[in-house]
């Protein structure tokens, strides 16, 4: 899956547009803007407007009341835990998929994309089947914090793996061979030669995973539930707010969630650019 932060605003080559003359392009641009407005921009504007409907104090209260504040903290913490696990597990899985050889590897490679294709509700149900009540393994993790982490791990699995895989494939083996000939151990080679090259991909994959994790909803509904002060994440809180008619509060919480996601994506974007320069 191509990265969401692909750059199409590259420096214009010294040749202007080769497509329909100005008239046609302007018309197309107008259509695109209209489409985006109806679908995205206007709803987002309405969201922001509604969040401030009760003034600053209502906005603040929607986020800082005990239940909301707890949910906010837990959402961020759980997502961070998931990102850290993903960095490690995702890199290992990518490594095995690229460097190792065993029967069925191609099939395994295809399976990685499953969380992209599978409905989130189904993801929740599959975890419930194995780790919930009636579990053949005797594990009852449903409706616990562990369930939240597991569900988030499920849906964010492909992000780091798919980001790291192509970079690993492109890596120049000769660099590693040179390092080995100079006496570096495998681990040192990994730490000093391979990891820096992978860092940009790991960072960008992590950013996407984090943004996905803090907003996740469907997989948590059945498997973790939204128990206040236990498993409730922001998306669940917002959902309940809508259901109980408190649209202003829900909007305020939504705005905060959105801002966090955007800020994190921005920070990770910068980090990725920085690490690209030092990727070697």
């Amino acid at each position, binding site marked *: 899956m191509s990265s969401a932060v692909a750059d199409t*605003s590259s420096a214009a080559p010294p040749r202007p547009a080769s497509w329909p003359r100005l008239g046609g392009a302007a018309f197309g641009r107008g259509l695109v803007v209209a489409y985006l407005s109806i679908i995205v921009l206007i709803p987002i504007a309405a*969201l922001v407007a509604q969040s401030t409907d009760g003034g600053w104090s209502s906005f603040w209260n929607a986020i800082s009341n005990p239940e909301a504040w707890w949910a906010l903290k837990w959402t961020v913490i759980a997502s961070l835990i998931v990102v850290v696990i993903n960095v490690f597990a995702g890199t290992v899985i990518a490594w095995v998929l690229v460097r*190792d050889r065993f029967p069925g590897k191609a099939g395994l490679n295809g399976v990685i994309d499953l969380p992209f294709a599978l409905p989130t509700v*189904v993801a929740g149900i599959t975890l419930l089947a194995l780790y919930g009540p009636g579990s053949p393994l005797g594990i009852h993790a449903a409706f616990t914090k562990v369930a939240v982490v597991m569900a988030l791990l499920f849906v964010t699995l492909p992000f780091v793996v798919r980001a790291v895989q192509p970079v690993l494939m492109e890596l120049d083996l000769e660099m590693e061979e040179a390092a080995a000939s100079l006496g570096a151990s495998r681990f040192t080679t990994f730490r000093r030669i391979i990891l820096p090259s992978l860092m940009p991909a790991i960072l960008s994959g992590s950013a996407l995973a984090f943004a996905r994790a803090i907003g996740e909803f*469907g997989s948590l509904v*059945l498997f973790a539930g939204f128990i206040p002060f236990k498993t409730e994440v922001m998306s669940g809180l917002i959902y309940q707010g809508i259901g109980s008619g408190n*649209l202003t509060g829900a909007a305020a919480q*939504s705005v905060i969630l959105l801002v966090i*996601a955007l800020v994190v994506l921005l920070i990770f974007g910068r980090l990725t650019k920085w690490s690209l320069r030092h990727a070697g």
Partner: protein
Amino acid sequence: MPASGRASRWGLRGFALGYLALLLMIPLGMIFYRAFEHIGPAFESITTPDALHAFYLTILVAAIAIPLNTIFGVGCALLLVRTNFRGKALINAIIDLPFAISPVVIGLALLLVYSRTGWFGGWLDDNGFQVAFALPGIVLATIFVTLPFVVREVVPVLHEIGDEQEQAARTLGANWWQTFWRVTLPAIRWGVSYGVVIATARALGEFGAVAVISGRIAGQTQTATIWIAQAFGNFDQPGAYLGAVVLALLAVSILVAMNLFKRKEAT
């Protein structure tokens, strides 16, 4: 390849396989087991009018939303890659927005505009066009969440093939439509296919946004995913598991199509 300790290779392999097995594959196997464990009641449940309507609605919504988004996606990609204008970065950012927003938030935002008390909803409702808690709302929500997919797949392909073929077509007398239809579109077809396939998967699986905007009225505005969640909540576990299996099978066939198109794109 630098000599690797057999232990470390097996260790990594074991970890990867174990992780994937415990997180992904065994749970998936379980729902098949659970579904077929009580296949009788499961089948009965999934063939009730409400259930059938839910699956039908899911497919209908996809059938409307995906083509719309595909046309938008291809057009927008052409605009971004083949023309120059200020504000490209902004359009890029807006297109990427669905990746950063929780589905529930998307549902809320749409509700605030298109419900009876929303910005436009009142006017639309009065003119006979109900959006929230009806099909159009679900379609809008689905378009929102699938917005980036086709664009993001087509843009790199357009970059890669370059515009020389299109220039050649122009010098040979083709107008812009002929150029697009005969030269550009065939060149990007696998990128488009891949984007359409991922978008479809996303559309079929959408839950949060639809849960908010649709009102989840059984037999009317429930989609398949919502039906499954409700069935489970109503202790109709067999039905829910079978429904999950159906969607899972759909997802797997989509995965297969994805891999096929990815390979074709590479040639």
